[in-house]
């Protein structure tokens, strides 16, 4: 197999989803641009170019509100599955492994290997940070994109307010207001539903060959990590 073929095979998952993400983002930009210009016609505003729309608060808030909920979902999922279990689910640890687990299980301390990452072998604060780096990164991106949603959302909301001859609000008024929480919560509910569904459906249903599923012949009661 040639080198580039091996690269494509070894990275197929990330490459495919990377392309799907870019495709969907472009699609969102085009549809959002058309939708925005339709609303401008109704509200007596000017039509904007695609570039003007891409640099507008309307596009930014629509992107940010979806990103923040995805990263919140991952952060909570990664963190909650340390402590919470679902018996029989491929998304869960077995019930007897609740908690941060032993150093032996986690290949830390005396149990590191030569291939262990540098900060896993380093010990001290470096290992402490690295041990939590996935959750911390997800939480960090969640907080940043939620903040971006609040800033862009404020601008988009106030422009809409002014077009309806209503008073604009400040940032504090916006993040304690209906528009911000409506956008936030409608994103959160679907994320939490998705995790809950995966946790439960995976107990009883199978997808042969997928690591997200238990082996087809595995019992419902057995908590396996993947098929």
């Amino acid at each position: 197999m040639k080198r580039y073929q091996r690269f494509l095979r070894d990275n197929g998952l990330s490459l495919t989803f990377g392309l799907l993400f870019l495709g969907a983002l472009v699609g969102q930009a085009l549809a959002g641009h058309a939708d925005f210009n339709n609303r401008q016609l109704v509200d007596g505003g000017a039509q904007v170019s695609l570039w003007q729309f891409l640099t507008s608060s309307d596009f930014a808030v629509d992107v940010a509100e979806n990103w923040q909920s995805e990263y919140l979902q991952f952060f909570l999922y990664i963190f909650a599955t340390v402590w919470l279990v679902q018996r029989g689910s491929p998304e869960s640890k077995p019930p007897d492994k609740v908690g941060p687990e032993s150093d032996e299980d986690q290949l830390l301390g005396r149990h590191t290997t030569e291939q262990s990452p540098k900060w896993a072998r380093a010990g001290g604060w470096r290992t402490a940070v690295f041990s939590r780096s996935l959750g911390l990164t997800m939480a960090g991106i969640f907080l940043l994109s939620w903040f971006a949603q609040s800033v862009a959302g404020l601008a988009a909301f106030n422009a809409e307010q002014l077009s309806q001859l209503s008073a604009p609000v400040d940032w504090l008024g916006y993040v304690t207001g209906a528009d911000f929480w409506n956008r936030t919560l409608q994103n959160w509910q679907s994320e939490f539903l998705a995790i809950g569904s995966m946790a439960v459906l995976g107990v009883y249903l199978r997808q042969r060959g997928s690591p997200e599923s238990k082996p087809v012949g595995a019992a419902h009661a057995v908590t396996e990590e993947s098929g």
Partner: protein
Amino acid sequence: MAKIVGVLVIAALLVTGCGSAQREAATATAAEFLTAVKDSDLATACGLLAPDTRESVEGPCEGGFPELSGGSVGGVVVGTVEVWGDRAQAKSDAGVLFLVELDTGWRVSAAGCEPSVGDTYECTLAGP
């Protein structure tokens, strides 16, 4: 991580339309409109109205109509003009003005506005 923070902050600033150039232009239009109405210069005042607002009043604009005549919505700009996207709000000593940024520049979409129910305004001169 620092790069991501930087990009997000810059993006946040860009999209909030923090441009002072926009605020200056909107303020200039508001001031020009208010002065024109006060001086009964209806030709200038009408030229500064947004097309939708012009069309919503009866009769030819330059011929004068109740909303513009008498200079009741004329005066001076008071305080800072607030700009959000392509919309702005200017406070004057004759009520609040709402402006919209069109291809031809900033135009007045509503004038002589006073706070009404909730966060809405009731305007002497407004579009559809």
